[in-house]
């Protein structure tokens, strides 16, 4: 089966939803894909323990009311089958989607850095914990430590507390001066003020980071370095994330250039490949407001409404300013590169330890010798970690972009022979 879209949008978070809504009024046939059960991305993730903001609900309703927008939930891109044809898969079937134009809204993932004990059950990402709680993960009366960097730590703590968790500590690696400087600038972007509340949280510590997750078969405690002093806390969960990194893999595979580890775009949100646009966190981390305006610009530009797109440039510039301040304040300290020990697993799919990797000079050599990055996640976790730790650039991904069923891959053959 081949489906046709004038405009295909990959990712239904704030950027993808805004792109679809901006393009929809032109009457163009739009297909919006997302690998989650509902639109909304990570920030507007729905679930039994989620509280969607009014704006998210309104955008979802507007999308549902657009007769020319077809949404496919739980659908992943598996391969580029031919020029402007993608192979996709959901729980039931695989099929091809042919498109004229494409907008990549593939978002960001957490930077997860290896430290001793990080593979123990009970250790999650910081945003990861928030996502799991929204999906119904019970945390009532659990003792939590949240660590890493960025405003997401506070958002994750707030969600967990709301659902009855006891947050023992929020350990932010950035310095107090950096965080205070960030907070002082927040009044320039009203609505973002809540992010400064961390400094008033009795459990929030700057200049602090995780040293080790403790436990035998599951997490039992955490060792932190807090202002130069080692502290141990008994806990049930550790949520640890070191900020967000753009998901550029699909864009790279489609031939879009990457700059500063994000998909490179011009003022129209156009990538370096003709008819291919990108918006939101895959073009650089900047928060949902920036994603929304970038998505809208891309949506307008993709249906050639340059006037409407250009009208949004000043709003984008304003939120780009916020992104710059944010990224500067929470820049990662180099001491975080020294957390892993020789026996600490780096590749969690193939169980490859740091000691097996550190003697190699690049990604390819390490991969061939150890199978690092050759497992199910295809290096999305360890590749990003090793890029941070050693400066190794992971190669452009090759299809299948995620594990797929054989029946789905057979659709490629049908296409080739038919």
């Amino acid at each position, binding site marked *: 089966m081949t489906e046709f879209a004038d405009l295909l949008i990959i990712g239904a978070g704030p950027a993808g939803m805004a792109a679809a809504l901006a393009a929809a009024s032109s009457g163009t046939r739009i297909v919006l894909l997302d*690998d*989650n*059960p509902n639109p909304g991305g*990570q920030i507007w993730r*729905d*679930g*039994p323990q989620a509280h969607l903001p009014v704006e998210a609900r309104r955008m979802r309703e507007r999308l549902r009311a657009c007769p020319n927008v077809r949404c496919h939930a*739980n659908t992943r891109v598996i391969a580029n089958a031919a020029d402007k044809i993608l192979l996709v898969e959901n*729980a039931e079937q695989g099929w091809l989607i042919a498109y004229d134009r494409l907008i990549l809204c593939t978002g960001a*993932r*957490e930077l*997860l850095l290896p430290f001793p004990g990080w*593979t123990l*059950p*009970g*250790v*999650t*990402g910081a*945003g*990861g*914990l*928030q*996502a*799991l709680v929204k*999906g*119904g*993960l*019970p945390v009532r009366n659990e003792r939590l430590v949240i660590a890493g960097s960025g405003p997401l730590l506070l958002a994750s703590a707030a969600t967990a507390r709301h659902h009855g968790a006891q947050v023992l500590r929020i350990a932010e690696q950035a310095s107090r001066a950096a965080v205070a400087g960030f907070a002082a600038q927040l009044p320039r972007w009203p609505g973002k003020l809540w992010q400064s509340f961390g400094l008033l949280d009795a459990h929030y510590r700057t200049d602090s980071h995780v040293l080790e997750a403790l436990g035998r*078969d*599951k997490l039992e405690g955490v060792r932190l370095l807090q202002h130069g002093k080692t502290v141990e806390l008994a806990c049930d969960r550790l949520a640890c994330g070191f900020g967000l990194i753009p*998901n550029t893999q699909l864009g790279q595979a489609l031939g879009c250039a990457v700059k500063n580890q994000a998909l490179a775009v011009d003022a129209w949100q156009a990538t370096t490949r003709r008819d291919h646009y990108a918006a939101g966190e895959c073009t650089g981390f900047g928060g949902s407001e920036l994603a929304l305006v970038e998505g809208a610009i891309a949506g307008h530009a993709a249906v050639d409404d340059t006037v409407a797109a250009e009208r949004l440039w000043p709003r984008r510039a304003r939120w780009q300013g916020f992104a710059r301040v944010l990224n500067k304040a929470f820049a990662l300290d180099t001491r975080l590169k020294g957390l892993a020990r020789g026996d600490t697993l780096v590749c*969690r*799919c*193939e*169980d490859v330890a740091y000691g097996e990797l550190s003697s190699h000079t690049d990604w390819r050599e390490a991969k061939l010798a150890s199978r690092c990055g050759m*497992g*199910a*996640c295809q290096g*999305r*976790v360890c590749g990003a970690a090793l890029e941070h730790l050693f400066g190794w650039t992971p190669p452009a991904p090759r299809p299948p972009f995620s*594990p797929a*069923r054989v029946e789905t891959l057979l659709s490629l053959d049908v296409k080739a022979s038919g």
Partner: protein
Amino acid sequence: MPDVFLDGRLLSVAEGTTVAAALALGADGCSRTSVSGQRRAPLCGMGICQECRVMIDGRRRLACQTLCRDGMYVDTRP
């Protein structure tokens, strides 16, 4: 309230609950056994890390991106 079978045990969950959450609601939260024999649990919560992969009705799926449906069979030790 969907009922799912988690490693053979019946579990009732709230509508919209992810399989990843069900793993913790009905058992120890673990999703799979690693190549060196370690038990693992969901990590990224957003479909990236693949740690939460489980067998659902005989197909490998990500627990964090799959909602519980009535009569679903979830296996963490296939």
